[in-house]
């Protein structure tokens, strides 16, 4: 069981002039085991900050995060992260990128390569195992980055707009593949996105944040089975509702 519990979370960033910017305030959220949750909201609502706090890359000002009952105090391979920017190490071959986390754990070369091969297979890139990242397309790089995070067998997979830099077609294909990975690996996924369409297509629940200070405006449960039909009327209806919500929070500032 690998739920994420966020309690009374607040985050303030110090500014040059000695005052602070309140990025997040009073965030409470329970994310269940094996759940797929998307965080959406207008720019500057703190959704990436929230994700980075769960990852342990930022500290909290008030409140805290527990994963699987244990408090988050810093980065940990148990919480895998996929970044928006291309984060593969360019000096390592694909296979050694995927095996990086296992290497840090001290797993022997043979065994970590075997595990890495398994995850490369899972994302369908076995034939690129000996390539360098610069030889891969953007979509392939992100698939390797996902394999690299999964190879650590994390409790939670955190994804910060991982498909934001991809073209629309690649993006749709990556979403499909991510869902099939999620069904195979049964990870809890927290996914930050700008795209409401993407959120409605992927999530069990969509968490809509309002900006400055970021707090939870509403949580929308999407009960439909997958794969979902983007062109259906009900899909469009939910998308419209979420978009309107984001618009409102932006305009009431």
């Amino acid at each position, binding site marked *: 069981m690998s739920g994420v519990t966020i309690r009374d979370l607040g985050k303030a960033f110090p500014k040059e002039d000695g005052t602070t910017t309140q990025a997040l305030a009073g965030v409470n959220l329970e994310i269940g085991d094996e759940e797929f949750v998307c965080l959406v909201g207008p720019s500057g609502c703190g959704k990436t900050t929230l994700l980075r706090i769960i*990852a*342990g*890359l930022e500290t909290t000002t008030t409140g805290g995060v527990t994963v699987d009952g244990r408090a988050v105090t*810093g*980065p*940990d*391979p148990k*919480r*895998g*992260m996929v*970044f928006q*920017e*291309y*984060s593969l*190490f*360019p*000096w*390592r071959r694909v296979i050694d990128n995927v095996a*990086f*986390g296992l*290497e*840090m*754990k001290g797993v022997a070369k043979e065994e970590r390569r075997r595990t890495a091969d398994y995850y490369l297979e899972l994302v369908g890139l076995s034939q690129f195992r000996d390539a*360098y*990242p*610069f030889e891969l397309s953007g979509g392939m790089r992100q698939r390797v980055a996902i394999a*690299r*995070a999964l190879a*650590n067998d994390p409790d939670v997979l955190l994804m910060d707009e991982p498909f934001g830099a991809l073209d629309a077609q690649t993006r749709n294909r990556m979403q499909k593949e991510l869902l099939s990975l999620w069904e195979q690996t049964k990870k809890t996924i927290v996914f930050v996105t700008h795209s409401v369409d993407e959120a409605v297509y992927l999530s069990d629940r969509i968490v809509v944040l309002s900006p400055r200070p970021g707090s939870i405006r509403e949580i929308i449960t999407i009960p439909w089975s997958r794969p979902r039909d983007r062109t259906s009327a009900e899909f469009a209806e939910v998308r419209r509702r979420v978009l309107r919500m984001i618009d409102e929070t932006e305009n009431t500032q």
Partner: protein
Amino acid sequence: MNRQTQKRLLGIAALVVAAVIWQIVAEYVVGRSFILPSVTDVAGAFANLLGSGTLLADIAVSLEHFGIGLLAAFFLGVPIGILMGWFRVADFLLDPIIEILRPIPPLAWIPFAIIWFGLTTQAAGFVIFAGAFFPILTATYSGFRDVPKVFVEAGKVLGCDTSFELIRYVALPAAIPAIASGIRIAMGVGWMCLVAAEMFGVSRYGLGYELWHNYYLHQMPNVVVYMLILGFAGLIIDRIFRNYVDGQLLRWRAGEVA
């Protein structure tokens, strides 16, 4: 004829023309080998020097001086650059000292090189070190400062939990191209310091030493020979290093290295 052969042929043609002009000017305009030795004077001097058999010893001794200086610069410059690039406190502490020492011309260290090391191989090595150290240090420093933040964060979430691990597995590999080009600049500067480092008689051999020695003997054709050898040797060292680095880095870095 393709571009490549065209380039080569034109290059050779220009060299031949330059040599002919040099010969004519030396022989018919200047007319004194002491002021401007002609091509044939230099070629003859080169043949004599080849026969005398000290050329190899000269090259070996010069490479020894050069090697001492560069190795010392590498083994001090890289670690200090890493410390300053990674730890803010080390940067704040060392930066003022470095900034005061750095603008001192390497050759200004020659008096103290002699006083500290005497007329020894180490003294020549020290002068070359003084020229090569700072390029390596600053390149390592900026290579570390420019490591993309996302690589460091990826390293952290993937299980690097000490500074040592982050440096060893993330920052250092990311900074290698910067460090390599720093070394390349350092080798150029170090080679330039060589002639001055050997000027004050630290050894009986050495390309720089011979250059000065033949000057005192007024053997100007020999001086030109050593000038040319210094130039060629510098070029070859640079090429070897560059090919090595490109061979190592090109595999993951398509294009822009050193």
